[in-house]
């Protein structure tokens, strides 16, 4: 236990010390607290920055990715100079610069059923800054089993949700969402896009809740869900109750230990390859280039949205957005060979599933999508 602040720290935290709700005792509480941040992306960036600035004594960061240029539109903890570096190292360096007084623990590994309890057990509060259902259910269950608050934030395009799931005092994530949606029904941020400032708003709200809980002040979002829409600039609150049938925190809970979350959600999680249509369907950019040399009229079906064609397109390709494939397949000739593509290969894989169940056979899925084509064949095209 640290029991006093240095002169330098008193100056650094003076705007906190001036407020009776925090004060010297509150600041010491923060200094003796620890928070685990799962993910150092859009949500984790503002969360970790504000927690470090507030003087949380120990912050754990979990991520296994490296910084990419396409992250910088929203992941403000990273910078141009750290593109290509490990995200946890890039984040640690930025946080140490912001506040050299605090301890940063880094975990350069995916958060899984094997390591999650070990990683999380020594922290007071867990922050969910993940972007996929398996890791969200895992984060929830770990928090329930360890009896720790789970500060939940989630985003999609212009919508955000925030709550504090703390099974000791209120509902957990599974009380609200007992099951994830079936795979493919909700597109990911990589496919659907995200308004860059949105995770800033949601992550900052998560950091607010974490700091309040550590200080023991105010009304935490336990039993309430905040719904934010950036386009409407609307904040709505709804009440959440504990679900008596909840499988992890209910009185008759039957899930007593961590499970296989990828199986539960029906989707591959970390390092997932959702860009393959399966054996026999895939074609590499080089193979497609060879095919086009033999048959320049080979039908190319682009299943991206019309506004994506403005970013980059392949000349001569026919555009039917994935959402319209089922209705417009009469425009296609099942006797004619075609290559289906999108940005990365996952929407085209779903288009192939749809067409295949309607009897189409002569199709290939461009592996890696137009981005792989731009990287490996036509380097005059931009990546996005």
């Amino acid at each position, binding site marked *: 236990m640290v029991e006093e602040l240095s002169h330098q720290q008193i100056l650094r935290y003076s705007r906190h010390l001036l407020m009776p709700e925090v004060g010297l005792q509150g600041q010491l509480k923060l200094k003796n607290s620890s928070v685990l941040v*799962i*993910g150092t*992306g*859009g*949500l*984790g960036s503002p969360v970790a920055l504000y927690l470090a600035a507030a003087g949380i004594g120990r912050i754990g960061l979990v*991520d296994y*990715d490296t910084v990419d240029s396409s*992250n910088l539109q*929203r*992941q403000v903890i990273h910078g141009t100079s750290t593109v290509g570096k490990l995200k946890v190292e890039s984040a640690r360096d930025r946080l140490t610069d912001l506040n050299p007084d605090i301890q940063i623990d880094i975990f350069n590994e995916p958060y899984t059923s094997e390591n999650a309890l070990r990683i999380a057990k020594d922290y007071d509060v867990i922050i969910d*800054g*993940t*972007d*996929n*259902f398996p*890791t*969200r259910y895992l984060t929830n269950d770990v928090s329930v089993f360890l009896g720790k608050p789970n500060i939940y*934030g*989630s*985003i*999609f*395009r*212009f*919508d955000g*949700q925030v709550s504090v799931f703390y099974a000791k005092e209120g509902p957990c994530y599974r009380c*609200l*969402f*007992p*099951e*994830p*949606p079936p795979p493919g*029904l*909700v*597109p*990911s*941020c990589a496919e*659907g896009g*995200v308004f860059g400032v949105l*995770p800033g708003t949601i992550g900052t709200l998560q950091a607010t809740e974490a700091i309040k809980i550590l200080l023991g002040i105010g009304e935490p979002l336990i039993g309430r*869900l905040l*719904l934010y*829409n950036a*386009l*409407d600039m609307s904040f*709505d*609150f*709804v*009440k*959440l*109750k504990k*679900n008596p049938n909840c499988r992890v925190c209910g009185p008759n809970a039957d899930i007593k230990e961590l499970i296989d979350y990828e199986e539960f959600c029906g989707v591959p999680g*970390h390092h997932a390859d959702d860009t393959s249509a399966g054996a026999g369907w895939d074609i590499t950019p080089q193979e497609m280039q060879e095919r086009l040399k033999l048959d320049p009229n080979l039908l190319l079906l682009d299943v991206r949205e019309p506004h994506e064609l403005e970013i980059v397109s392949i000349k001569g390709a026919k555009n039917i957005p994935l*959402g319209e494939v089922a209705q417009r397949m009469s425009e296609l000739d099942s006797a004619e060979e075609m290559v289906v593509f999108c940005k990365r290969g996952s929407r085209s894989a779903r288009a192939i599933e749809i067409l295949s169940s309607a009897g189409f056979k002569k199709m290939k899925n461009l592996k890696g999508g137009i981005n792989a084509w731009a990287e490996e064949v036509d380097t005059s095209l931009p990546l996005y």
Partner: protein
Amino acid sequence: MTTLRIPTPLRAYTSGKGEVQVTGAKISEALTDLTNQFPAIKPHIFNEGGELRPFVNLFVGENNIKDLQGVDTPIKDGEKIMLIPSIAGGNYG
């Protein structure tokens, strides 16, 4: 007339509308009106058996219909209905 709030992920099926005006004295009637106006949204809310999908939550005012009378929950004048889906976004990877 009641206002039904549509979240971004489902606006693709309501011609981009964030709010839809529906009629009905209870939730089931309001949802029938919604799916009549926008048939494409139906499979995203109901399963093949016609039941609400478990990951879709409907709130009347501040309360989850699961904590009230389910789809039989009555709608009072001026109460707003919100559809709340699970979203996973964020930027982990």
